[in-house]
């Protein structure tokens, strides 16, 4: 009986003490799953050189990044949208990196080059078989991201005129697009170019390779920015973190791990 009363007291105490227990020294980054791995890497390095700091990195997606930066749940929100939504107008946004989007197919597929028009037709469902795009006789499995995803929004805004075919498989992250395309010989998808590996093949778009050089020289079309969002007047600690990410050391980390630097 006593034990039960204790439990209850304990849980009530937990709830009430919740508001005052937050550690003021720590910085939380939250949002874009595309940038999350890079943020974790950067946080790891930042904490090594600043032993006093505590950086926590959370995913959730770009909308969570915006919401939590607005509500204060995170000091820094991460978003990978081409155009920020109206809610974000009160936040100060900094571009810390850019990301190329690669259109990928299964390595077994002999197709190497697609035009913007072909990509549009494939994702619209007008081209349904690889033989219509210069490949073998095989049904195309279109793989796309969920509506609202930064990668998808950017992809559709740059390719223009896409109304995604109903049969398209929807996968919720770059990693899952890669796995799905790697497992299905007829699949086509798109993902952050930093996550390309040997299990999938990036096609040339209008004759341009998806490489860092082509992206830097702006020959490659599919590129989107990555924003860090803070309250209009970020604290000194927060500003130091952002400054670190923009510093040569931070930018080098970003580039080594597959993103393109901010400038």
């Amino acid at each position: 009986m006593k034990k039960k009363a204790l439990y209850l007291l304990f849980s009530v105490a937990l709830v009430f003490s919740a508001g005052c227990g937050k550690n003021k020294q720590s910085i939380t980054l939250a949002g874009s799953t595309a940038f999350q791995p890079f943020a974790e890497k950067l946080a790891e390095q930042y904490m090594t050189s600043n032993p006093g700091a505590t950086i926590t990195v959370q995913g959730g997606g770009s909308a969570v990044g915006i919401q939590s930066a607005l509500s204060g749940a995170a000091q820094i929100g991460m978003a990978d949208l081409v155009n920020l939504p109206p809610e974000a107008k009160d936040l100060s946004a900094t571009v810390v990196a850019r990301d190329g989007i690669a259109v990928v197919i299964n390595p077994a597929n002999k197709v190497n080059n697609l035009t913007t028009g072909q990509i549009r037709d494939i994702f619209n469902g007008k081209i349904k078989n690889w033989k219509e795009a210069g490949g073998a006789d095989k049904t195309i499995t279109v793989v796309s991201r969920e509506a609202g995803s930064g990668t998808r929004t950017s992809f559709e805004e740059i390719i223009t005129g896409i109304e995604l075919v109903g049969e398209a498989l929807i996968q919720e992250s770059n990693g899952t697009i890669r796995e799905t395309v790697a497992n299905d010989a007829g699949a086509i998808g798109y993902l952050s170019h930093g996550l390309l590996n040997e299990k999938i093949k990036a096609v040339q778009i209008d004759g341009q390779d998806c490489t860092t050089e082509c992206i830097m020289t702006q020959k490659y079309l599919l590129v989107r920015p990555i924003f860090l969002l803070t309250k209009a007047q970020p604290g000194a600690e927060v500003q130091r973190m952002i400054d670190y990410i923009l510093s040569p050391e931070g930018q080098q980390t970003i580039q080594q791990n597959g993103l393109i630097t901010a400038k």
Partner: protein
Amino acid sequence: MKLDPKNTQRAAVAVLGSATLLTLTALIFIIVFVLEKGLPVLNWSFLTGAPQDMGRAGGIFPAIAGSVALTVLAVLLAAPLGVGTAVYLTEYTRESRLTAIIRFGADCLAGIPSIIFGLFGFILFVTILKMGWSLLAGGLTLALMILPTIIRTTEEAIKAVPLSYREVSYSLGATRWQTVYKVILPNALPGILTGVMLGVGRSLGETAAVIFTAGSSLRMPASIFDSVRTMAVHFYLLAREGISAENAYGTAAALIIAVLSVNLLAYWMMNRMVAKRT
């Protein structure tokens, strides 16, 4: 074949037996699949080491700590509430509109998708109550999720305690609560433990609600206000983001072994208790 009772019995045994076999095969396959791929990765430094390079290398100790802390917290919060509700429904009140409503509420709660718990926990605990992504917010959310399971199983277990035990207890001058505490709960304990173990299982395995409320920070939690990443979330991120399939399987294997040990421990304790009484 004639449909006499004997042949029907044979047919029933065959059908039921093969259904059971199919079930066990499917379930064993999953365990073997995970262990086969994960056991080679498992070693002491993997279990006790800190992750490096986002989990591509290093160990999973913070994820183990996160899973254990979150599950313990959720069960500590949910078990008293769940058992208390079941005791009230079975021992303290007659079947009435009220009990029907409470029971219906529990059933509905059981049906709420984890993603909705996640959204709810994110807005209420993380944002409005300003707990942030934390053990506490995750524990509270998970506690609500496993509450109905504990209520339902405890109720069934309490109903299975013979009426005569209650009568004897009352006739010896016990109050209602004394009867519950000394006779009913000890005898219903195996069933209650089943419910708690199902709850533990669900807490350990939950991903959607946990990411939204406890976050996915890879650091060791220092207090209940710190964000944690559970083994399930770690597995999900490693496997789905294609970070490291090897370490993902290692994490899943560790998780399965952890659940196995918790179960074995619970059964050992339970058997000791039952053996003492009979």
